[in-house]
């Protein structure tokens, strides 16, 4: 029987020499879910992932991976998961095929199955032609595709992806995202850590936003956006120079910001702001060149929640 939850984390804490990197976080990830972990640098995302993948021992708290406690049954828990760590880390002196076969061996997959699976993944990730080339001759995009493929060698129930598309070319990014979606639709639970908020917005069923070692928000991207409605905004451009502060209309507009040649106004009542802008233009003798209403986006939510 497949459990409802792939991951159950309770009060997970990690301290390094008195510094609390992860502070009593609790969360559950459902089976088949694509779960995003967002946060600024140093928020504790990678430390959390390293505790969940059995590399770091938590200072306190528990983490269940499937039916196994990562501390009590680390090998069984690790057998269920595939891991794509943040840095490119295939063995550069080995060929792509040999890297995949090594992963197969480390997960105890039989030889025949290992070869079959490696060839399937090489084809899927567009690396089959170069399977016998050493990884050091690969481009960054090819290397990253191989690393994702290595994480899939053991047909994991749960896949951890730490910044899988950081710094890659558009082609590789698209291929990796497409395959993440495909594998997720086949039932693999995916934990995605990313700095790319738009990526999380597009891919994830739910996201958790971390800051200073704590989870500050956890929900679906759309719900997070609607919870923080004040972040809806209007972008306006005038034909004359206008100071951003002049557009703080009473308590209707909460914040204004100059963005290039435009001014962005944040408001919960965007409907009321538009006539005010028209009136402002008329009274100041300037013309509105463009006016866009922007729905709240996940980036705004992120910035708001992770502000110092």
């Amino acid at each position, binding site marked *: 029987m497949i459990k409802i939850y792939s991951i159950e984390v309770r009060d997970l804490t990690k301290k390094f020499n008195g510094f609390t990197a992860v502070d009593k976080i609790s969360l559950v990830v459902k089976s088949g879910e694509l779960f995003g972990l967002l946060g600024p640098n140093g928020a504790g995302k990678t430390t959390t992932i390293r505790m969940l993948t059995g*590399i770091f021992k938590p200072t306190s708290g528990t983490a269940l991976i499937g039916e196994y406690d990562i501390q009590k049954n680390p090998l069984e828990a690790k057998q269920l998961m595939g891991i794509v760590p943040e840095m490119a880390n295939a063995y550069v002196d080995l060929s792509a095929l040999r890297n995949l076969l090594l992963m197969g061996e480390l997960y105890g997959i039989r030889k025949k199955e290992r070869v079959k699976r490696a060839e399937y993944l090489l084809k899927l990730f567009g690396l089959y032609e170069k399977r016998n080339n050493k990884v050091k001759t690969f481009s960054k995009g090819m290397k990253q595709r191989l690393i994702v493929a290595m994480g899939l060698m053991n047909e994991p129930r749960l896949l951890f992806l730490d910044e899988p598309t950081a710094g890659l070319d558009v082609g590789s990014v698209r291929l990796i995202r497409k395959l993440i979606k495909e594998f997720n639709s086949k039932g693999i639970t995916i934990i995605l850590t990313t700095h790319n908020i738009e990526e999380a917005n597009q891919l994830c069923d739910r996201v958790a936003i971390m800051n200073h070692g704590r989870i500050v928000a956890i929900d679906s991207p759309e719900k997070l956006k609607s919870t923080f409605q004040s972040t809806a905004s209007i972008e306006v451009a005038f034909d004359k120079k206008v100071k951003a502060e002049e557009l703080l209309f009473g308590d209707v507009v909460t914040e204004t910001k100059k963005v290039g040649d435009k001014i962005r106004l944040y408001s919960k009542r965007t409907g009321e702001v538009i006539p005010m802008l028209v009136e402002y233009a008329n009274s100041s003798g300037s013309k509105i060149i463009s006016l866009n209403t922007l729905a709240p986006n996940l980036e705004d939510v992120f910035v708001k929640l992770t502000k110092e």
Partner: protein
Amino acid sequence: MNFIGQLKRSLAVTKKDLFVFYLKGPVLISGILMPSFLFIAFIVGRNLSLSFLIPGLLGMALFVTVSSIGPVVVQWETRMKTFERLVSAPIALWAIIFGLFITFFIFIISIILLGVEIISLSLVIGTIIAAFCFSSLGLLISAPPTDNPSNMMMISSMIKFPLLFISGIFVPISSMGKWKFISYISPLTYYTDLARYSIGGTNNFSPIVDLLALFGFSILFFISAVIWHKKSLTKRF
């Protein structure tokens, strides 16, 4: 997780290490070239008997090789960020360490087979135990959590060269006078002594003492290495 399954994974680690590290420059330079030059410098112009030279060569080859590859493998993996992948796979730490151990062992044995003809049974047994012992020493040297192979090479040289000079390879123990006792702390002393006994018939200790000492050092090094590796693991990331 069953024991045999873990052992198979150890072998996977060994296979990978052999592919990746056998022909790495630093390993070849400080594992084979350096000791060869040292040895040539030692014999040229001196009228030494073969039975004195061969045991020394054997001991040095064994010892220097492993203390050279030891500090390279783990540090290299840490630097290349492959170690994280390895420890997040379902392989126990002892199995990773054992895999490394077999790598060192194969490395040593192959060096011996390449260079020297095995002469007697006691030397074969002694060589195998010494290979165990020096492989464990290699593991121990690889434990500090740095990602810089050259730092570790330096520390390893600091340990290895004094040991070479106090182990009766260049200077016979009998001529060390009151400093003789220093040679007892080096595992290499016992191997050189055993090799001298097997080849030339001269010895300072009984062969049994030599074998027991080597065995004792092996256990001590291996256990210390596992404990230290466990402690240093999280500091590697």
